[in-house]
């Protein structure tokens, strides 16, 4: 039983890790510089 739970946890961690990576990658590709505003800093000189 412990083995099943253990491997299920490993797979779950891998799945969550991959899902976060995919989501971040999607957002990186969709990023638009003109919509971005610097937080505490100067705007473009």
């Amino acid at each position, binding site marked *: 039983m412990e083995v099943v739970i253990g491997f299920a946890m490993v797979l779950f961690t891998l799945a969550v890790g991959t899902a976060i990576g995919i989501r971040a990658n999607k957002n990186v590709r969709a990023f638009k510089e003109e919509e*971005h505003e610097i937080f*505490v800093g100067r705007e473009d*000189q």
Partner: protein
Amino acid sequence: MKNKDQQMLADKKQLNRYGYAQELLRDMGGFSNFAISFSIISILTGAVSLYGHGLLYGGSGMMGFGWTIVAFFVLLVAASLSELASAIPTAGALYHWAAALKGTRIGWYTAWINLIGQIGIVAGIDYSVALFADPLLASIFNYSSTDTTILIVFGAVLLLHGILNHVGIKIVAKLNDFSAWYHMGVVAILVVSLAFFTKNGLQPIDYLFQVGKTFSDKPYFLAFLIGLLQAQWTFTGYDASAHTIEETVHPRVRAPWGIYNSVAFSFVFGFIMLSFVTLSIHDAAGAVNSDNAFIYVISQALGGTFGNIVLWLVTFAMFFCGLSSITSFSRMMYAFSRDKGMPFSRHWAEISRKFRTPAKAIWLAVILSFVLALIDYITKLINPNVGYSTIAFLTAVSVVGLYVAYGIPIFLKLRAESKGIFLPKHYGPWRLGKWSKPINIISLIWIFFICIMMVVPPNQMAAYAIGGMFVILIIMDLGYYKKHFKGPQAALAKSIEEIKKLEDEFEHEKE
């Protein structure tokens, strides 16, 4: 798509917007940025040097369950930090984020807590090198390994790391890249050796997830939680990708990936390695009672000579880990001193014109790390029956220091969002969208929980050390910095002409 020169120009302009000049040499690519964090996490350092700790408290199940549980939550912490690195890409990282999100004083405290953790991590890693190298050297040169010889080897390793870091980011970056491949290669050698050449065969897979048996005198549940230090200490130091952000090309994307991927890959490689090492144990009681459980297990499984070769390979991996950790530590000190947050800041913020590295900050990192281990050495000379190990003390200090410093900006970002100060437009390219908030909250709960667990007895000495350092911080803050520390925002007062002039000086020096 920009070419490298265009990208570097854009990166420099981006840094200038925070009021900083491009003083450090921006030469690191995505792999180098990943490699520095992967090398500092170093599954061959944390998971190996605290293998005995994990086994003692959590038994063999610590390697299957403990490693996975910790990795799951650390992935969430890493994702939270990645977002911040993408939004505010400066070398000060945690402290700059905290200062930007709330104010200079909280930023100042974050920096110091981060520094305490960094001292602990450098000392812990290089002490691990000494713990492994000294017995190996003792068998070659025929002397007895003692606490004193370990301290001497520790000092020599620190010295070597100081020199290599001083002479340049190019050589360190190359060694970091090599280190990442080296770690994967050594894990592969270890796994293949244990899979095919172990003397007594491997245990059934159930052994990896066997819970309920501890070799300590604590109840199992508590012992298991104490044993998590093994995995939790391994997963530290990945903020290095953010500290080297001003040396990374295309940092708003590459540094967050460096943070996140270093944790993800360490989980996978670490799990494979720990599985095979644990399944090769045939005398767990003997291992936990030995001076070094990992050396014991490998020697039992692979025999003297082969085992020694593997142990030398592991020791070199630890050496690379220490090298990277001093890089990260010195960059953090450089950035903090640039904003005048430390005594004698002018020195620590000074960049060597010849090597373009923060040379004095590097040597301060070396000295502070040595002093921490020296204090512990003297404490044990005075009272030999302290009941904790030096490595557990150093690692607990680093885990608590670093994770508190990780948690502060995550909390402040949540707070700033709820107050409508930090808005979606402020995020950088690497962001989690709607997932951000729940991931941040779970990360904070984990940080709170793990910081408590890392200082419960027998590790209470770490709590005293951190508490003592915190009292000193309060005195420093109230006595001087409360009035005088202007924080990273002060850099914005610098005109663009001043910044350009400074950059020109470095460019001319290069020519």
